[in-house]
């Protein structure tokens, strides 16, 4: 086998950028530009606005009621700098959600842009559709679907409390990676209310074309919801064995990251 073939074979073993070659001590032009493109896509994903009109219409076609809200972060910059603002609703939106909450429900579902509107645009509907199959077969009562912009994970705590839900589920765009600008995560919180800690949630991450399929993500969520109802809790005590990830690191993986949580 030639050396070039050997390197090609090695490169096939990992998505890491190996066997790139070099120009002097630098990267070849093609690799420099390939990297720049990946970064540009990730940046665009962070700053893209979520088209809630279109998404709202699509969800309406599934026979669901839709409420549109925005967190207290007025702009993308304020969202990035002030995680606390992205976790709270504006007063008018609070009232609208409360007014629509006529009866207690089992499940409150929020869809939020998080750090990647592209992830929501690409994967929220397929996940929601699959999830509805489980919701219907289990007979869970559902509140109106809340579409939120400039939202972080904990925004669902306030929404879930207002909807008087037993459990809050939020679909949210994860912090974009260079190879995956459109990865979606799902977070589940039993007995939602503001002030819930991250250790009280479960998460399913890496939903994207090369990652976890929407159908499987919905199935895992349904399993977690059933377990949460049976045991009256979510969080570390309800660990999805397949999503174990080492805790307590300055650098933890992309597993449950929407960029809101720093390493740790």
């Amino acid at each position, binding site marked *: 086998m030639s050396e070039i073939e050997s390197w090609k074979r090695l490169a096939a073993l990992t998505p890491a950028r190996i066997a790139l070659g070099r120009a002097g001590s630098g990267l070849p032009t093609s690799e420099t530009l390939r990297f720049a493109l990946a970064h540009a896509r990730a940046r665009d994903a962070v700053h893209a606005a979520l088209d809630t009109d279109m998404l709202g219409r699509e969800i309406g076609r599934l026979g669901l009621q839709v409420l549109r809200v925005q967190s207290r972060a007025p702009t993308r910059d304020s969202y990035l700098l002030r995680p606390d603002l992205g976790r709270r609703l504006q007063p008018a939106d609070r009232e609208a959600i409360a007014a629509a909450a006529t009866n207690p429900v089992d499940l409150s579902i929020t869809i939020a842009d998080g750090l990647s509107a592209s992830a929501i645009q690409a994967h929220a509907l397929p996940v929601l559709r699959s999830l509805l199959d489980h919701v219907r077969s289990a007979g869970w009562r559902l509140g109106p679907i809340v579409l939120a912009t400039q939202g972080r994970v904990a925004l669902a705590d306030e929404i879930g409390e207002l909807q008087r839900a037993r459990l809050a589920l939020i679909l949210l765009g994860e912090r974009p990676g260079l190879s995956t600008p459109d990865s979606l995560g799902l977070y589940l919180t039993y007995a939602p209310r503001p002030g819930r800690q991250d250790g009280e949630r479960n998460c399913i991450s890496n939903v994207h074309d090369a990652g976890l399929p929407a159908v499987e993500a919905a199935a895992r969520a349904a399993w977690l919801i059933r377990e949460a109802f049976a045991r009256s809790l979510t969080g570390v005590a309800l660990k999805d064995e397949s999503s174990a990830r080492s805790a307590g*690191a*300055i*650098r933890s993986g992309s597993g449950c990251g929407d960029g809101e949580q720093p390493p740790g």
Partner: protein
Amino acid sequence: MAYRHVIGQTTYRFGDLRELMAKATPPRSGDELAGLAATTAEEAVAARFALADLPLATFLTEALVPYEDDEVTRLIIDGHDRAAFAPVASLTVGAFRDWLLSDAATSDVLARLAPGVTPEMAAAVSKIMRLQDLISVARKCQVTTRFRNTIGLPGTMAVRLQPNHPADDPRGIAASILDGLSYGCGDATIGINPVSDNLSVLGDLLQLLDEVIQRFAIPTQACVLTHVTSTIALIGRGAPVDLVFQSVAGTEAANRSFGVDLAILREAHQAGLSLQRGTLGRNVMYFETGQGSALSAEAHHAVDQQTLEARAYAVCRAFDPLLVNTVVGFIGPEYLYNGKQIIRAGLEDHFCGKLMGVPLGCDVCYTNHAEADQDDMDALLTLLAAAGVTYVMGVPGADDVMLNYQSTSFHDQLYIRDLLGLKRAPEFEAWLQDQGITGGDGRLLPQAAAARLLSSFAALEAR
């Protein structure tokens, strides 16, 4: 006690030492998020004037985080070396800066001073220093550590080879290791951030690294960067552990959020030492830190993030580490907003660590939601290398496909070696020459020379 400074008609008052330190800190988003930052640019400079007039010894009597509440404060105060501190004991923070920049502060003098420098002193003086000050003083500080090679000699810079894989696949990891070795990376350590926290998976990764190092007789050390409690368990199972890793922070409460305290770190340190796997030295610990970790754990005691970061180095220092690095841009824009803030923080961290006698490296890095790009990383890498950084990361193509952030690449370290003539750890440098990877001048030979490694790796991969 309150501090004040008058500028024209305005008297700026700072309620206590914490407020003075926070408001003197050059701008960063994390201090603003915590509500600690100065409200005007003039107030920040007034705080710096007041800080410059403060006697250094104040930090020995006025704790920023209460002694009674925090074991890190107790470690700092109880472990302070008064004899080492004596030469600067009468100086103010401002006079300390002037002295550090003077010819009187030679490398030898600074090495003797290090045990007398508390993190708060280092942080305070850094706040009134410009980048050029941080660079030129840090460059004079020499910290040398040893395990199977010698890290930190003047004129050298080491690289941690970081061959992460999103599924911990041993063959994928081996492929990245081979690529990195062919670029002359890996003298600091070959260190994997695992996805899994499963002990048998971690044990397999340690076996893989041990086999690579043994088979090719590489004078370096391996590390799987998992929680210390897992590493202690792995040592108990007889796994081949070279370096014991842990993330640490600058307060007891923040460390608790990482699931550690000083007692468990002592236990881990002793467990690592007990294996006696180092051939040249007994520096067995590897720590990572980063500004903002205490605030994110709601454990910051209203102290600014840069001072708390320096306190993390006091934790590291107590365990004679081989390697310590700040992961400077990983935490996100709510703590360090953009390239400018990341660059300043990286140089502050490096300066504070080195002044305290800690072998400080840096993960020069950023995330995609920070206002930063490769140009900022080039700038920080170049400045840190000029400052004598102990080591940086070597990530394939700068793209960590497991942790989803951008660090420095195999190519980046080549660039800076070429630019500044920086050598590797001497034992590793000699090994690369023996392998025909580098020539006598330390520069890479044409890539065909890596063919021998490549064929040996094919055998390893086929096992």
